[in-house]
């Protein structure tokens, strides 16, 4: 399903302003670092289970949405994380076996992950309700593929922008912005912060490209430049959190919640 994004439940029910998110979460102060930590753990579990990127990214969005509906102390957060991956595998028609998800999660998070498969099924049931059974997720990968041709990204640049989109799913970006804005922001991050990836263009070629970029983006009436600027800001705070986070202390924090 990927028809019209503007008609999607993602746009209608699951896109928020920054203030809305602050209001929803006022009780969960340590949210950002816990979310980032669990997001990284989810990536690891996805890797162990050989999941495709789209499955993992969908799981990340499920996780972010879930935390808008439940409190951090409500459920075992490792169970919630594993369940989101299991649900994403089903939503993306790449179904994993519940037992295998539980087994790998228990290996990855010994003592923390409940080992009974039925807990995963039970948790899935509750999360489906909390997510209002909205399971179709629009990611920024497709828009990135489209604009990468238009702006002539090198393979390295494309790869870096793709990874930036992966990173974005570990924070609020997918709850705040449309896939198109995220794709543009990811591309900007790469063009500005990773000039070494441009494949050795001549200064003239670089100038030409920037000209095309600024002219055509200015002309895109459907691309909200304020949104784009906000999205880039979110990227920058994500990367600074990634550098400053003390993972061990977050893990302890989560253990305290159990």
């Amino acid at each position, binding site marked *: 399903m990927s028809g019209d994004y503007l008609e999607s439940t993602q746009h209608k029910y699951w896109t928020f302003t920054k203030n809305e998110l602050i209001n929803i979460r006022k009780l969960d102060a340590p949210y950002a670092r816990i979310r980032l930590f669990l997001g990284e753990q989810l990536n690891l579990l996805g890797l162990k289970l050989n999941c495709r990127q789209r499955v993992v990214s969908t799981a990340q969005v499920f996780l972010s949405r879930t935390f808008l509906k439940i409190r951090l102390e409500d*459920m*075992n957060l490792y169970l919630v994380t594993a369940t989101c991956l299991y649900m994403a595998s089903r939503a993306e028609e790449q179904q994993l076996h519940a037992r295998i998800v539980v087994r790998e999660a228990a290996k990855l998070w010994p003592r923390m992950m409940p080992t009974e498969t039925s807990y995963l099924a039970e948790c899935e049931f509750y999360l489906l309700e909390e997510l209002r059974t*909205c399971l*179709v997720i629009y990611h920024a990968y497709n828009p990135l593929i489209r604009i990468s041709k238009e702006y002539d990204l090198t393979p390295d640049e494309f790869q870096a922008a793709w990874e930036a989109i992966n990173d974005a799913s570990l924070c609020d970006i997918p709850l705040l912005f449309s896939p198109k804005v995220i794709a543009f922001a990811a591309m900007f991050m790469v063009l500005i912060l990773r000039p070494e990836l441009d494949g050795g263009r001549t200064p003239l070629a670089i100038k030409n490209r920037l000209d095309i970029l600024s002219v055509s983006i200015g002309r895109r009436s459907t691309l909200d430049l304020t949104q784009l600027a906000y999205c880039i800001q979110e990227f920058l705070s994500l990367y600074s959190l990634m550098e400053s986070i003390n993972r061990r202390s977050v893990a302890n924090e989560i253990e305290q919640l159990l």
Partner: protein
Amino acid sequence: MESLDDPMRRYKARRSRRADPLQGYDLLGYIAAGTYGRVYKALDRRHGKVVAIKKFRTERDERSNSTTATASKTTDTTSTNIAWTGLSQSAYRELALCRELRNPHIVSLVATILRHKSVYIVFDYYEHDLLQLIQFHGSQKRQRLPSALIASCLYQVCEGVSYLHANYVLHRDLKPANIMITAQGSVKIGDLGLARSFRQPLQSLFTSDRVVVTVWYRSMELLLGCRHYTPAIDMWSIGCIFAEMISLRPIFKGEETPVLPGARGSVFQKDQVDKVIKILGTPTLAEWPSMRAAPEYPSLASMRHHRRTLNEWHRRCGMGPEATDSLDLLGRLFDYDPDSRISALDCLKHPYFINTEFDKQNCFKHVDYVYPSRRITAVDVPLAGQKRKLPEV
């Protein structure tokens, strides 16, 4: 499960204080049962309207049936009640797709409810379905469906399917029983339990579901085991529905060869293929070049050769020589080559719809009698018994 070790105990305590949304419905009876579960007719008290509630069968825990006593002892020490088992993939699809899709010709989802270890989808209530209309004409009224009704139903189905295909969704189970009709004559496509997105699938559609579409409505490329199937499979099913409206019986009523449990791969549905080629003629490589690559092409080649008798079939149904548009559209829907088979969007522009008089919104317009209402079976549990939950499937 209420032990302190329960990883969700605080959540469950909070959840148990929420109202049970099922309490807002009065059960009026049950409509039908299928492999997916059961459909009930109910009154939505809050909105004062009648709805259909589809309750999905929860998957049986196969493991607990088959494991030996020693194995279950070790796993069942903490929980004595029924183990939680996953929802069926079909429930997942229907939940996910019905949530996103919005079209006048697709059944509309009112709410989803997850309670009592079951999934319920609440839909608008539809008084009729196409199968019921066809059967009424075939057995009681003993006369053909009015041509305005046929054209209107077909048109509205094509509108719904073109919306699905434009949104990269294949229905994969179109048949008269899944075409709902309101008392006002508006046609809605239902049962998206087999539907799925075909845009950028992470694995081929064939890998995840080997058998799709009820055998009588299954297209030739599926019957020949093709793995890369397209929206054209839905168009073939529409052709079968069109033919069934014309003749009041399934046009290709084959005997399904059962798939043995545990069998690998799919089974060649020889009788179904035979029924198809007896009317459409044996397909040739000239009309369908890529047929050569179909896994079951050799099986087809070994079958008796038939010539095309669709014109005779059409005439036997009482369609005179003036009905060339209907015959032409039927032929295009039954194009063997999925690549050249007509699309839903092109159907809407076909001369058949220009030259036939019909109403695009109301299939009952120009019909001077009223069809009987849907038959509702009383539920064996009194309504009061629904206070806590709907009966078990």
